[in-house]
């Protein structure tokens, strides 16, 4: 259902409030079908917002987006779907190590990954992937990094 909406009604992201409402409906659906997932998302949000330089915004398709100094580290839709931009190498390694880490539901063949947060173990995995992205981004944005440029992950 989520994939269908993104694929066929993606243009609605340009309609004011439409992504917010779409995510609100996802949240209601999740609250009835898998209420524990909302708790997992809250846990991840609370933990990530403790990290220095992190900011929370609304993702353009709805859901919460985590930014490090204005650059996206990843976003979570209210059905528990995590999307993160990584390097292709990082993506390849993660997909080999964890069966739950999948190619992005839309951006196939890029560095983007998708992961459905369904169980406690997925929360730990999500945190470790965010940690990886955070460290990578932090290193790239460090002024001491002689190769510092605006990082492009995908």
């Amino acid at each position: 259902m989520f994939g269908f909406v993104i694929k066929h009604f993606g243009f609605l992201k340009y309609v004011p409030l439409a992504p917010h409402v779409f995510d609100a409906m996802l949240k209601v659906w999740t609250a009835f079908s898998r209420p524990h997932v909302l708790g997992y998302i809250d846990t991840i949000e609370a933990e990530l917002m403790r990290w220095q330089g992190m900011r929370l915004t609304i993702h353009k398709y709805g859901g919460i987006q985590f930014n490090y100094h204005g650059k996206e580290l990843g976003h979570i839709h209210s059905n528990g779907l995590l999307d993160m931009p990584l390097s292709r190498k990082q993506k390849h390694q993660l997909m080999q190590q964890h069966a739950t880490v999948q190619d992005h539901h839309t951006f196939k063949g890029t560095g983007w990954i998708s992961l459905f947060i369904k169980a406690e173990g997925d929360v730990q995995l999500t945190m470790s992937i965010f940690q990886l992205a955070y460290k990578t981004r932090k290193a790239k944005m460090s002024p001491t990094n002689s190769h510092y440029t605006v990082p492009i992950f995908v």
Partner: protein
Amino acid sequence: MFKNLFTQKSLGFILSNALALVLMLASRIFIRDNIGLSASTTLIFSEFVVLPFAMGLICAWFWRKEGLSSMDILKHMLINTFLAIFLSLIALGEGVICLIIVSPLLWCFMIAGAFTGKALFGYNNQNLNVSVVAILAIIFITDASSIHQYENMVADVMVIKAPPAKVWQYVVAYKRIEEKEKYWLFKMGMPSPVQSTADGYYLGAGRKCIFSNGYTFDEKIVTYDENRNLTFDITKQPRDPEIMGHIDILRGQFLLKDNGDGTTTLTGNSWYRLYVFPVWYYDMWAESVTRNVHIRVMEHIKKLSEAK
């Protein structure tokens, strides 16, 4: 005592509803109908979309330090929805069925506002705060001062195992429907059609459509093409706080087609004008209600016509 009453949590509920009520009443001044006159019964898109969203934002502002979980916010927004519809019942005189119809829309937009507000205010993120409020205000004022008009037609078709001449007599007028209600809104108390009477079988005759709560639609036959076409304009209809206060039925029509095998294809058409917006939400309900009115009447005509 007042200190306990006006906590951050209760202020979210109180002030969001107070603002909504004030804006609902204020918008009565600005809303215009299709010819630019004040239309105090018209309820617009902004009142069901922008206002609940703003209510969610207000709650999020007051609850930003409460540490509420997502599930808590959903529950709080559900309470706020009930509060808002209760206030609408008292202050705006809306009907219960109408409020049942509107509640999912309110809840959804309040949730969207509350979670957007959480992202905006929850972590001292000051970006976009002003622009969000400004966008909402612009949408509200533009919408309230725009002309609102929407008309639609619903058609339903049924095959009756009887010739057109037999069907025709029940199309013009029919005795009381004794069948139990099948449509869930009728079961919940929404008035359903029970009987139709006519002054006579001729062009210009008066016709009455009587509903279960005693309300009567006065009609006038404007096309009387025997065994083929009965069209009637609605000349007077009850102003009810329930859904009928937000919709005008303009015209009704029964078309009969002789299938040549002793059966008749009966088509029921209704034209209506909506006074509630957004159309994408309320027209879905209007179509559903009109369709179920059609089906109830047409099934009754079918039963009468097919009786030996």
